[in-house]
């Protein structure tokens, strides 16, 4: 069906040579390899395709060698990394498909559309697996938002939050949690990481595979336009003063089309005539066709004249590289095209056949009756270059890790209020109240808790979701920071009684061509992988975002971890009507005892206390004892299952006093207690600690169990009253909840103006 012979250049196309290849981000070696692979000089379209597939975003060329360290298998894993989303078995015949992805570069250039299309892309990754999305999380990092210098950043915060909200709210997927941090290293490069999770029956899982020679390839959804051309390449470059000019490479989203595409795709997949599905995300039609063909060990013939266009003047190069949103590719059984077309048209969507699957492993593209590309699929997709970039610790690491002795607070209550009044530790309601968190009626614990908890309709189970990372810890010691991020995620799930079943991540770093960044990446991944093995948590999907830097200034290493846990037997945790309070992190039942679990110790490297109150970011981050963390988590899960706990909250940024403040603010119920800690230790970020509350009658049993698990436990005091009262070595913290809540609640609204 295609003309014989090699493809020829089209009239008006630029001449392809090493210079043009360099402009496309290909190194001389990469370009040389491409010419060798083809046995000739590539056409302009072929060069565009290769540059997209070889981009860091699509090929993981700088990170692949490190990513291999992650454990990716367990008895629950159905699909590990390599599919659109990873899939794990969550019991009772159900599976969960989930993934996290970054949309950092587009969001910095155009925050509203950048963030919105980030949500759109991750939702498509989930529903192309046949799973109906039921929850989103968002992990956001912004720069300084204070004062006149923060004006642009406040604009970014506003745009990103509106973009995420408008997209997710319209599609009807609740945003149930996430995290937001602020640090000057993000001034020139914000981070927007979006996570989505979907569920389906195990036998309904789909994969993105093109198979069966002669089977038709259908294009569905929005028409192809000029938006987003070279988005994947743009996302693989650092920012400079020219970046503003890249605004046209940001895609424009349409959540309504996404919603009908979601429903139509799930209907089509249920109909039994669809063999494979792939969305068109980064690198658009290029990556969807090549990746689907590669997975099936097949080839494709595509007639670009059949691709629905917004304007007739698009060139083959533009058609292949457009990142117009809300587009999908289906492979169906031969002769079943019409069935898919009818399902889509019921939802007001168009679908048309644009090509066929072949069995010779080549991608052949024609346009205007002429061949414009003829390339081998597998070597381009799986044979993309892999680099082991030179890595070396930063020259100033020793100085960075020198301890700066923290100053003891004269007034711990005052220090607490100042911490609660920072955007970093203050209430995030200003953000999450712009996201629908209750649609789909599964949300038991929504945003603002350690872990979000959803019930899973039709099963006795609940799902717990969390996302965590501490960029300061990672900057001071990336290996420890990587371990900490995973350990904190496991701990957050354990406070809800959930067993972790899988993890995804977004690795946000600067340029891997800088040996210090390559070292950060390698060390962070090593630390995360160690912790994953220790907790037996497989990494089932993920995303790497490199080149997050502007004018040579890299972001703090930010390996965002999103983890999913299963609570098997939600109703065993307590009375139905109390479960949402039991699983939240606040004090709610007067008379309960408050216990502190875990080893005490003074840890101030990278702590919120030093960073936010004294501007010091130095020392070694808190040590992470994986064995002690595992014991704590096992104890928390056991105590949850036995129905003993009325609440649990992990100790994180800000330490004990901040955690207690969060607990009393939640339901407006206070506590009175005592600790032997020094005033400074109240703010220590020693890891592996948590607060639990339980009825006095359960305390003896709990202490016995804690001892059995080898977890230190101490009784801090009793829930009650309208104040936070905590005696310490040398004084008493005594604050009215209303005062604490006031500074905490106003922190973010005041900062964003």
């Amino acid at each position: 069906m295609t003309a014989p012979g090699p493809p020829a250049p089209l009239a008006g196309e630029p001449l392809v040579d090493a210079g043009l290849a360099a402009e496309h981000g290909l190194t001389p070696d990469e370009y040389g390899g491409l010419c060798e692979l083809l046995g000739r000089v590539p056409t302009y379209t072929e060069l565009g395709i290769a540059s997209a597939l070889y981009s860091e975003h699509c090929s993981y060329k700088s990170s692949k060698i490190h990513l291999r360290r992650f454990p990716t298998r367990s008895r629950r894993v159905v699909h590990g990394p390599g599919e659109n989303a990873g899939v794990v078995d969550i019991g009772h015949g159900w599976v969960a498909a989930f993934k996290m992805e970054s949309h950092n570069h587009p969001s910095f250039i155009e925050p509203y559309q950048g963030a919105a299309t980030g949500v759109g892309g991750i939702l498509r990754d989930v529903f192309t697996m046949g799973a109906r999305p039921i929850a989103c999380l968002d992990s956001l990092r912004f720069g300084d938002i204070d004062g006149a210098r923060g004006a642009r950043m406040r604009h970014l915060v506003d745009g990103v939050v509106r973009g995420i909200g408008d997209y997710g709210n319209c599609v009807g997927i609740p945003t149930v949690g996430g995290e937001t941090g602020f640090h000057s290293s993000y001034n020139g490069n914000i981070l927007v990481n979006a996570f989505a999770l979907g569920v389906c029956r195990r036998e309904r899982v789909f994969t993105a595979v093109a198979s069966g020679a002669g089977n038709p390839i259908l294009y569905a959804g929005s028409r192809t336009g000029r938006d987003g051309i070279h988005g994947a390449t743009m996302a693989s470059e650092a920012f400079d003063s020219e970046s503003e000019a890249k605004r046209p490479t940001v895609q424009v989203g349409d959540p309504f089309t996404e919603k009908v595409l979601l429903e139509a795709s799930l209907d089509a997949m249920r109909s039994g005539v669809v063999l494979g599905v792939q969305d068109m995300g980064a690198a658009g039609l290029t990556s969807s066709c090549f990746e689907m063909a590669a997975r099936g060990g097949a080839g494709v013939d595509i007639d670009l004249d059949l691709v629905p266009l917004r304007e007739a003047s698009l060139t083959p190069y533009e058609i292949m590289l457009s990142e117009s949103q809300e587009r999908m590719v289906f492979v169906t059984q031969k002769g079943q095209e019409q069935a898919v077309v009818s399902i889509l048209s019921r939802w007001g969507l168009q679908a048309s056949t644009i090509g066929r699957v072949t069995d010779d492993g080549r991608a052949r593209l024609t346009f205007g009756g002429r061949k414009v590309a003829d390339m081998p699929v597998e070597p381009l997709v799986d044979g993309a270059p892999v680099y082991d970039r030179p890595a070396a610790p930063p020259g100033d690491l020793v100085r960075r890790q020198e301890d700066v002795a923290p100053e003891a607070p004269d007034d711990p209550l005052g220090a607490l209020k100042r911490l609660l009044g920072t955007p970093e530790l203050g209430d995030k309601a200003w953000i999450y109240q712009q996201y629908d968190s209750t649609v789909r009626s599964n949300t038991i614990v929504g945003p603002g808790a350690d872990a979000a908890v959803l019930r899973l309709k039709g099963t006795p189970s609940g799902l717990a979701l969390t996302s965590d990372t501490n960029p300061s810890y990672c900057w001071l010691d990336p290996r420890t920071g990587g371990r900490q991020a995973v350990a904190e995620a496991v701990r957050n799930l354990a406070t809800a009684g959930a067993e972790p079943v899988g993890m995804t991540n977004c690795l946000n770093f600067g340029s891997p061509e800088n040996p210090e960044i390559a070292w950060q990446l390698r060390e962070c991944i090593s630390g995360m992988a160690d912790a994953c093995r220790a907790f037996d948590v497989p990494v089932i999907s993920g995303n790497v975002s490199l080149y997050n830097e502007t004018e040579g200034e890299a972001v703090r290493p930010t390996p965002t971890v999103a983890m999913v846990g299963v609570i098997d037997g939600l109703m065993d945790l307590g009375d139905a009507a109390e479960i949402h309070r039991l699983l939240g992190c606040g004090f709610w039942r007067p008379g309960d005892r408050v216990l502190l679990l875990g080893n005490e110790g003074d840890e101030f490297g990278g702590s919120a206390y030093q960073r936010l109150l004294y501007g010091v970011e130095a020392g070694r981050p808190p040590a992470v004892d994986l064995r002690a963390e595992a014991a704590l988590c096992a104890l928390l899960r056991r105590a949850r299952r036995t129905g003993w706990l009325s609440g649990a909250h992990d100790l994180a940024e800000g330490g004990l006093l901040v955690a207690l403040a969060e607990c009393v603010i939640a339901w407006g119920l206070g506590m009175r207690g005592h600790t032997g800690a020094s005033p400074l230790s109240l703010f220590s970020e020693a890891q592996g600690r948590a607060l639990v509350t339980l009825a006095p009658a359960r305390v003896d049993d709990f202490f016995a169990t804690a001892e059995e698990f080898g977890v230190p436990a101490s009784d801090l005091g009793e829930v009650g009253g309208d104040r936070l009262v905590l005696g310490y070595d040398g004084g008493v913290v005594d604050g009215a909840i209303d005062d604490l809540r006031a500074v905490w609640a106003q922190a973010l609204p005041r900062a964003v103006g």
Partner: protein
Amino acid sequence: MKCGIVVFPGSNCDHDVYHVLKRVLEQEAIFLWHQDTSLRECDLVVLPGGFSYGDYLRAGSMAAHSPIMAAVRRHAEAGGRVLGICNGFQMLLEAGLLPGAMRRNRNLRFLSVDVHLRVERNDLVYSCGYRRGEVLRMPIAHAEGNYVDTDAALDELERAGQVVFRYVDADGSVAPAANLNGSKRSIAGVCNARGNVLGLMPHPERCAEDVLGNGDGLALLAGAVRGPLLGRGGDEWRALVEGERPAPARRFDATPDRGGRAGRLAAAVAGSKS
């Protein structure tokens, strides 16, 4: 009672309403398609929340011109029960089945938060499970819920007793701070003169099960399927809700535990099918 939930392109609370009607209240429930012209003999028609047609012109305005709306209008005019929630309420306004209109929220942002509502009358099927003046907690999730009409029209609405729910503070008092979207006279839900058509912005279907931490919305949907028409008052419903009834076996696909208030009501409604 046969319940029909209309699915428009962009509806996203259709499954949630279906879940409560079918699984929690154990009613016959079906989805109706926006291009259908028949209600297939449904007694209760629910226009669910979401972003029908993307809400691209005005919220609910395109949906109000869907083929099915002619049948919904006939049903309403014949005294049949029509419940519009959130985007469904906006459609009822756009279709002229309820008076008033919606503007963007006062702060021009989407609002997803729990609010308090006061029950202004309990002689409707929808509200007969509540006491008059009772304060309920329900989630709202909308960008255009700022109810507006002319002062004269609002006076008439009040006089005719068509304001069914009002945004209030936790103590039941009308206050600007409790009226987050800025609705005129804190109006959260209105009915037609006959009382068979109700529209409200808050989402009762999202707070109809104890396990979700809030069962306040169930009595509204239970009333919609089982409530007596005008004038009976809430007493017999209160008895059902608060009376001691044996809890049925635990069912995981519905209300997991019927020990709570919503659980008892669900058991009562499911167990008293006519």
